[in-house]
């Protein structure tokens, strides 16, 4: 497809070689607490057609860098150094001069596709706007081009969708539209700032594919800003790792992943749970938190968290030393020591010793059942009308699922957003009879519970930890009150409460002296520990974990996962673990259930299901998860699902997955008949492994 309306391609000013060159970039913001040194001394050269990833945790300065390059930083920011596009300096240019470059030579894809498009204009209007700013073309020509672009990024029936408003698009489609917007004028540099963070893995795989296609079509250089090392491994040519505003390691993707020379990079790589891990071992945990960039102490900013720290690390901040390969630089005084022994995270970071539970030695079928769902359904009526409300349909949120959790066991529940995971846990927590089917908690049938008192006493045994550790803690309550609240509700004596809160804080790795502080004085990881302490207060037997680590930075996430593992073994807990990150589930769960549109499509022992997936949806889901291993990523073949999850109010007939199924597409007309007519049962495909497909067939995807 032609990318240009006028027929002839835009003449590239830089066909090959360096397009964008950043040298010694410093960005400082004034703040009440003092100057915020967001970026300190970043340099890189970006060649045409190349993809460079900037990796780092929140606050590391990666987004500020992208805004500085685009000239979209706040007016208060003080920027020094040099940013050159085609050899011409960009710093110091006015808004008018930068506006001519933005959208034309420099383009950007933002993180949140929900808020990055203006809600009151159609997608078509927003794309034509960017074309018409930079080119003197008629509106109809620009509209024709917009349709072409939408087609290029894989929006179905672009002729119609070009007239849609952003809210009529799903998240994945909006991000595709954002990419269409970015490539509309055939830019030389595309900056993608966390382009897939807000999306489901299946959609992430689609969008990354579109981004690669857009890069091929335009030949642009791409700066990919992300915290996801798996995405980096699959997409980037070169990597810059940032920490506390500073580049701490730079080099080709293989060198960064296979021979990292900076302890932070090593720790980061070791703290990611990997889908391809053969044996379960504890994750590397980086103690502490990234420093505040307001008052940075002298020396290496990573020193307080680094197990290899020496005296001079606290005094002299290391520059980027060239390592064995001069192209590969690392900001560590002791990179040579690391290189000499080729140390990995196991050699550097203390791995916590996680005890194994007593319960794990008892065979599964001899353990007590903690939670059992039998054919559980939850349907919501779809109502219409303001005064005379009438039922116009049904949302089949959960449509008959069977689950069982034994004592000391972790069941992972996975699936795309909208598949019914959250409804399932809400039903369990409510302890009320579902639409149909049954819930049995500790042998107690919820249909038999009468009255709030009995339900309340049962609640002691089931507690929950939520996804967002900030939103789930009352900002006006000190930590002591937060943790003591469930004890108060269940009339625990006051002296006992105090003892218990101290004990709980120690249990989750916090200082008892922190009890009088407020949630906002803690970092994300610490807040999640407070949430866990609160859930543990009543000594429950089952904890429902609703995406407990997905809002946390990678290095923090590992610590929380290790803590959950440890608590489970120590206290003999059972977990119902809801997550969209399959690598985390594989690490923590014993069994896993894969949900799709309100049904379980595959269930069983976690290594069995993940190593030998037989349902096409599980295979697609696993194949969409990026693995932080560049060589593996390059050789992997992705199964890309078509489109988005259908509406649970109007599910397809027969097998609900058939509309997006890659296997269905390969079947003959006759073979398709069962898929169209009947929902497959969960067929036994192995020892503790069932899969709901008419044509179950194992396929290796990891």
């Amino acid at each position, binding site marked *: 497809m032609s990318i240009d309306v006028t027929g002839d391609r835009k003449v590239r000013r830089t066909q090959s070689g360096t397009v964008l060159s950043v040298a010694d970039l410093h960005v400082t913001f004034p703040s009440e607490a003092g100057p915020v040194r967001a970026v300190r001394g970043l340099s890189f050269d970006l060649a045409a057609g190349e993809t460079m990833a900037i990796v780092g945790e929140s606050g590391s300065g990666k987004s500020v860098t992208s805004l500085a390059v685009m000239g979209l930083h706040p007016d208060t920011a003080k920027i020094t150094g040099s940013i050159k596009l085609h050899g011409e300096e960009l710093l110091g240019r006015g808004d008018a001069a930068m506006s001519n470059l933005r959208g034309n030579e420099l*383009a950007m894809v933002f993180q949140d596709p929900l808020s990055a498009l203006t809600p009151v204009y159609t997608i078509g209007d927003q794309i034509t706007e960017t074309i018409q700013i930079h080119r003197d073309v008629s509106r109809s020509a620009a509209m024709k081009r917009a349709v072409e672009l939408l087609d290029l990024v894989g929006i179905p029936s672009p002729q119609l969708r070009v007239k849609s408003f952003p809210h009529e698009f799903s998240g994945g489609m909006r991000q595709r539209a954002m990419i269409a917007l970015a490539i509309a004028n055939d830019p030389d540099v595309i900056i993608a700032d966390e382009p897939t963070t807000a999306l489901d893995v299946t959609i992430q795989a689609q969008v990354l594919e579109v981004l690669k296609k857009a890069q091929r079509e335009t030949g642009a250089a791409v700066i990919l800003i992300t915290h996801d090392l798996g995405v980096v491994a699959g997409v980037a040519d070169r990597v810059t790792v940032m920490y506390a505003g500073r580049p701490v390691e730079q080099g080709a993707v293989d060198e960064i992943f296979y021979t990292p020379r900076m302890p932070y990079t090593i720790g980061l790589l070791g703290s990611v749970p990997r889908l391809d891990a053969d044996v379960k071992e504890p994750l590397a945990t980086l103690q502490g938190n990234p420093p505040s960039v307001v008052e940075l102490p002298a020396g290496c900013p990573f020193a307080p968290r680094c197990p290899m720290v020496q005296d001079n690390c606290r005094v002299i901040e290391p520059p980027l030393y060239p390592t064995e390969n001069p192209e590969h630089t690392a900001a560590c005084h002791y990179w040579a020591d690391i290189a000499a022994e080729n140390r990995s995270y196991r050699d550097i970071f203390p791995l916590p010793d996680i005890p194994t539970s007593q319960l794990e030695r008892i065979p599964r079928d001899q353990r007590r059942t903690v939670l059992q769902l039998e054919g559980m359904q939850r349907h919501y009526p779809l109502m219409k009308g303001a005064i005379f409300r009438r039922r116009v349909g049904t949302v089949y949120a959960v449509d008959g699922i069977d689950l069982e959790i034994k004592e000391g066991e972790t069941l992972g529940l996975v699936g795309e957003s909208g598949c019914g995971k959250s409804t399932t846990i809400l039903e369990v927590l409510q302890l009320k009879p579902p639409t149909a089917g049954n819930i049995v908690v500790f042998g107690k049938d919820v249909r038999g519970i009468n009255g709030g008192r009995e339900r309340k006493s049962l609640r002691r045994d089931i507690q929950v930890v939520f996804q967002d550790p900030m939103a789930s803690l009352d900002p006006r309550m000190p930590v002591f009150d937060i943790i003591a609240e469930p004890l108060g509700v269940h009339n625990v004596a006051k002296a006992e409460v105090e003892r218990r809160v101290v004990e709980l804080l120690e249990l989750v790795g916090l200082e008892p002296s922190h009890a009088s502080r407020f949630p906002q004085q803690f970092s994300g990881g610490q807040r999640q520990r407070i949430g866990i302490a609160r859930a543990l207060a009543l000594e429950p037997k089952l904890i429902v974990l609703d995406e407990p680590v997905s809002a946390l930075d990678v290095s923090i996430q590992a610590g929380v996962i290790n803590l959950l593992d440890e608590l489970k073994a120590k206290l003999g807990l059972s977990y119902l673990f809801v997550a969209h990150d399959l690598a985390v589930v594989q690490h923590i769960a014993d069994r896993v259930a894969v949900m799709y549109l309100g049904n379980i499509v595959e269930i069983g022992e976690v290594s069995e299901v993940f190593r030998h997936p037989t349902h096409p949806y599980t295979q697609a889901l696993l194949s969409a998860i990026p693995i932080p291993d560049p060589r593996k990523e390059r050789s992997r073949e992705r199964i890309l699902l078509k489109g988005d999850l259908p509406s649970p109010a109007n599910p397809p007939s027969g097998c609900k997955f058939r509309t997006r199924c890659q296997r269905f597409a390969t079947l003959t007309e006759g073979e398709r008949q069962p898929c169209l007519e009947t929902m497959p049962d969960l067929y036994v495909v192995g020892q503790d492994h069932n899969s709901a497909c008419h044509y179950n067939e194992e396929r290796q995807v990891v």
Partner: protein
Amino acid sequence: MGKYLLRRLLNYAILLFVAVTLTYFLAATQLNPRGLFEVRNPPLDPASIEATLLQYNLSDRVPVHERWWTWFTGVLQGDWGYTVDGGHVNDEIKRRMWVSLRLVTVGSILGIVLGVALGAWTATRQYRASDRAATVGSLLILATPVLVIATVLTILATKFNQASGIRLFEFTGETGERGTYPLAALVDRGQHLLLPTIALTLIGIASYSRIQRNLMLDTLGADYVRTARAKGLRKQKAVMKHALRTALIPTGTYFAFSVATLFTGATITEQIFTFHGMGIYGVQSIQQQNVHGTVAVTAFAGVCTLTGAVLADVMVAILDPRVRLS
């Protein structure tokens, strides 16, 4: 859309009926027109008082639901009833409605347009001197009672007239002496309107600029404004086209709803500049135990509110495509 509006209108009609009926019962039981006659000196013949009250459907000896029915059947035929001295409420309302309209239209339109512009502009200059000055000015106006603002304006206008020797500002009533040149009537009315319009405009600017500034600050930081700039729009244009348009949606709703208070809430302005409008009539009706007048003013305010509500719906539908489609 048409069907949707029709359904809304039906809802509003029911609402209006309930509100007006409740007001009728309240006014008919609490106001005491008989008292007006009983305090007369020399005393009037009770029989003739009763006869007068009966004639105008105001006698408290008739059960209130019967009075209501008589009144309601009248209303259905477009007759809103009489005062004790035989004045027809319809005439009064008809005249005053237009007085109010003439008084508030220009002032409120100027107020909203200038207010929105000032609010949007100051938002882009947050915490600079101009923004702070606008904030202080607006708060000052909002904090000052209308009575004081109007009086101060009157004094200033007098000073101006004296100093310049031209009677530019006229501030009593709607019309006064006028010359014989062409369009003299219009100029005369304009002169009389000048001062109340300034008062209303100032108040409008003060409140709308506050609202718009806050709304604008929310959208200025929005991701889509950044996207618009990343596309190559200059800051000014990105703000005008993407931030302002979105920030106008709530202002549209707010404006529509304020239509009702515009007509009946300008009591003090009417009083000071001697415009015999609706606001003053409402107050006078209650003072003079005028049952039917009170109910009619309430009904008028109700119609204004509901018109405002319809207007708000239409406004939002025009400004916000998300509503239009669902």
